[in-house]
């Protein structure tokens, strides 16, 4: 779990909220990436300097789900977005 990591949008990447979750746009292409996060992840997360662990905390507080499940979900999303070149992680440890 990368709980101490802050994630930022890469240069040229924008993101907005949609019904299904987040829609990323990367002007360096490929242009669009649809991420079905529903209401669990807000675009502001990527500009707020909040740690991934804090995101897990807020999801856990709002939903009666096992913490390990939420941690895995957040990890998977962030790793995928990093691999797609849309975000980068900055460890504050």
């Amino acid at each position, binding site marked *: 779990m990368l709980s101490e990591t802050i994630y930022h949008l890469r240069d040229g990447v*924008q993101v907005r909220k949609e019904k299904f979750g987040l*829609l990323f746009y990367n002007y360096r292409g490929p242009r*669009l990436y649809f991420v079905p996060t529903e209401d669990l992840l807000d675009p502001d997360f990527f500009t707020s300097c909040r740690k991934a662990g804090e995101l897990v905390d807020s999801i856990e507080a709002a939903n009666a789900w096992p913490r390990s499940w939420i941690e895995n979900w957040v990890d998977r999303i962030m790793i995928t977005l990093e691999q797609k070149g849309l975000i980068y992680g900055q460890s504050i440890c």
Partner: protein
Amino acid sequence: MGNQYVDMGLSAPVNVTWEVTYACNLSCIHCLSDGGKKRRGELTTEECMQVIDTLSEMKVFQFNIGGGEPFMRSDFLDLIDYAHAREMVTCISTNGTLIDDDIARRLDSPLVYIQVSLDGASPDSNDAIRGKGSFRNVIKALACLRKRDIEVSINTVLTHRSFPELDRMVALAAEYGAKLRVSRFRPSGRGKASWSQLNIGKTQMIAFSDWLSRHLRVSTGDSFFSISTEDRRSLGLNMCGACKLTCCISPEGNVYPCAFLQDQEFLAGRLPADDFADIWENSPVFHSFRALEIKSCESCHRFDLCHGGCPAIAYHTQRKLGIPDPGCLANCVSIKPMAAEVYQ
């Protein structure tokens, strides 16, 4: 493309095609907007800035700007700067003839893409469609843009004249560090009058489909999903994006489903007077377009590849929506069905 997410309805277009003026210094025989002289009622600079503000607030990511010839507007570069200050990407379709070193310098931004129109690989073939001297001027523009390392595509409208020159167009684009984009000829604007003269037939369309499969780096935008093949399915849309991912604003601020459907019956509203968010969300025109089903295509093995193709071509050739794209190849060529849907 994540069609299932698009079908849920997006909060705003991903990109908006904006024809900023009808004024043009060329008189191409296939011009989709019948460009020529500036017309009364074109948006002022202030109105254009209001439009940019509105779309920026809705988080529209990109403008696809065309005309007419955008550089005919004396305020055009200021409008581009205004959009960039709001982090909006501008993809500018131009005939290239007005681009010089000074303009190239102003365009030198990572938020700019330039698409220069060229309809042949030689002065003879290009100028027959776009006007005398246009080939030479476009080549000059390409050289100016290359010096600045600005990302450029050469856009060629597929006609029976340009089709035999596509290999040479690929080479020409490479010579100037540009990509080649082939877009579909549609019978709107002056294209209505030149349709029968320039449109390619099914035999050439089949040959073009094969050619595209051999040239995966050639882009087609959203033009050719009617002939999409499995090997190109990740390169672009597999459905019409009108009213789902995109829409069009005319030089007067009229909002339409797409640049090729600017007839009165498709008018959804007018900017900046009307609320764009309301148009996007509630316009009956946009609602009916989103609900458009091409029932006769749904049993076709190619349906997931094209979703019935381009409604604008169906409309302009047969005055009907909801019918198959006349350029569909399903009945004359066997193309492998799509294995599974992917999104990116």
